């Protein structure tokens, strides 16, 4: 664990330094230079944070649904702790994605919010997370809370993909094609791609590190409240 923390800390520091400090030049001559992206210039750097954040918020949702399913099968409250911790972190990352995306949208598309399909999808994911916690807070009894929350996470997990493919037909997307797209082609400069993928890996690592801390904390609180009074 200690080793993992150290590596993660070093890794993310390196990623952040590279993302902010590598110069953006018109003609690349050295390995540490980023190309000029017309229309983005310095703003291109947000790519290294926005996309990994979006990615982790989806990871959070998927982890939450997986443990929700497991809770319903095992009825062990520990699975509920994992599920709700994953959702809590997912909510945080989802909010950060929305904010970074909205800032990017302002400078690239001209408005903070345009109900672009991606914006709508991430907004609805935010709503789902919100609803999940609203439901949890309205039930007092542990088992019931866990069951209802798990059921809601699963129903939302089933309907969410529909939104992702329905939305783009309602409004055209201005959002760039996904970096990791279906054609298997990556249109990115090598240095940028390396930093980007390192950032993706770093944020995923960060997610799972915070996740393990949250789970540990929740378990301790759980234990304390069972022994309390």
């Amino acid at each position, binding site marked *: 664990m200690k080793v993992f923390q150290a590596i993660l800390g070093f890794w993310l520091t390196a990623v952040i330094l590279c993302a902010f400090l590598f110069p953006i030049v018109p003609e690349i001559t050295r390995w540490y230079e980023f190309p000029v992206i017309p229309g983005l210039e310095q703003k291109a750097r947000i790519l290294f944070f926005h996309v990994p954040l979006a990615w982790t918020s989806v990871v959070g949702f998927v982890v939450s649904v997986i443990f929700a399913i497991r809770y319903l099968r095992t009825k062990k409250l520990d699975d509920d702790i994992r599920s709700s911790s994953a959702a809590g972190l997912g909510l945080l990352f989802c909010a950060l994605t929305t904010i970074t995306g909205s800032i990017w949208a302002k400078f690239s598309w001209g408005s903070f919010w345009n109900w672009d399909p991606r914006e709508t999808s991430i907004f609805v994911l935010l709503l789902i997370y919100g609803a999940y916690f609203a439901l949890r807070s309205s039930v007092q*009894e*542990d088992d019931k809370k866990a069951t209802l929350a798990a059921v809601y996470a699963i129903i939302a997990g089933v309907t969410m993909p529909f939104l992702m493919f329905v939305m783009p037909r309602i409004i055209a997307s201005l959002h760039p094609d996904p970096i990791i797209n279906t054609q298997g082609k990556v249109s990115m400069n090598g240095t940028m791609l390396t930093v980007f993928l390192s950032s993706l890996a770093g944020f995923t690592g960060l997610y799972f590190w915070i996740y393990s801390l949250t789970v540990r904390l929740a378990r301790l609180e*759980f234990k304390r409240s069972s022994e309390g009074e």
Partner: protein
Amino acid sequence: MTLVQLTASGLRKDFNRRPVFSDISFQLRPGQTLAVAGRNGSGKSTLLKIVASLLSPTAGTVTLTVGGNEVPARWMFRHIGMVAPYLHLYEEFTALENLSLIDRIRGAAHTAAEYEKLLAMVSLERRKHDVVRTFSSGMKQRLKYALAWMERPGLLLLDEPRTNLDADGISMVRSLFEEQRRDGIVIVATNEEDDAVMCDDTIEISAPRRGGMPPPAGEGS
């Protein structure tokens, strides 16, 4: 009716991780009756609900066997009749409709004559076409007995059996009780000495810790 055998072993129930009761085990064969006693809030109703498979225990198992075959928990209701204060009737329907609608939902179809007989048994035959909303609480209690008795269950669960009943009603309950104990099982949760002495056996439940548990919201005693 079918001969049933009931085994409860190591039952424990926690509400929000605080134990209501723990380590309750018993075994009942046809003809045996059991009283569950304990102070208010000690979890008598909770235990009954667990036996009826309406609640799942935190630990332990309830097994119901019919003719030597174990009944899966989700099908246990077929062999159970229950009367309890927290069990409510459809107030917008008449006594007769309550019987026939529930009968259909149970997937059975008794004849009109059988409904009449049941209603006569609980002395409601003259009010059978009145909606339950107009009933007194004692009459509602009587109708619950008719519903519980309809399928001639192997296992009869009575929570506070004499709630709201007059002397006539109590003697009706007694005769049902005697009828059931001939070849069935009865479990009675009660605060009353009189009910407990009728039974072969009594288990006293109490919270495993000092300072009894407050009952969970919406529970009877």
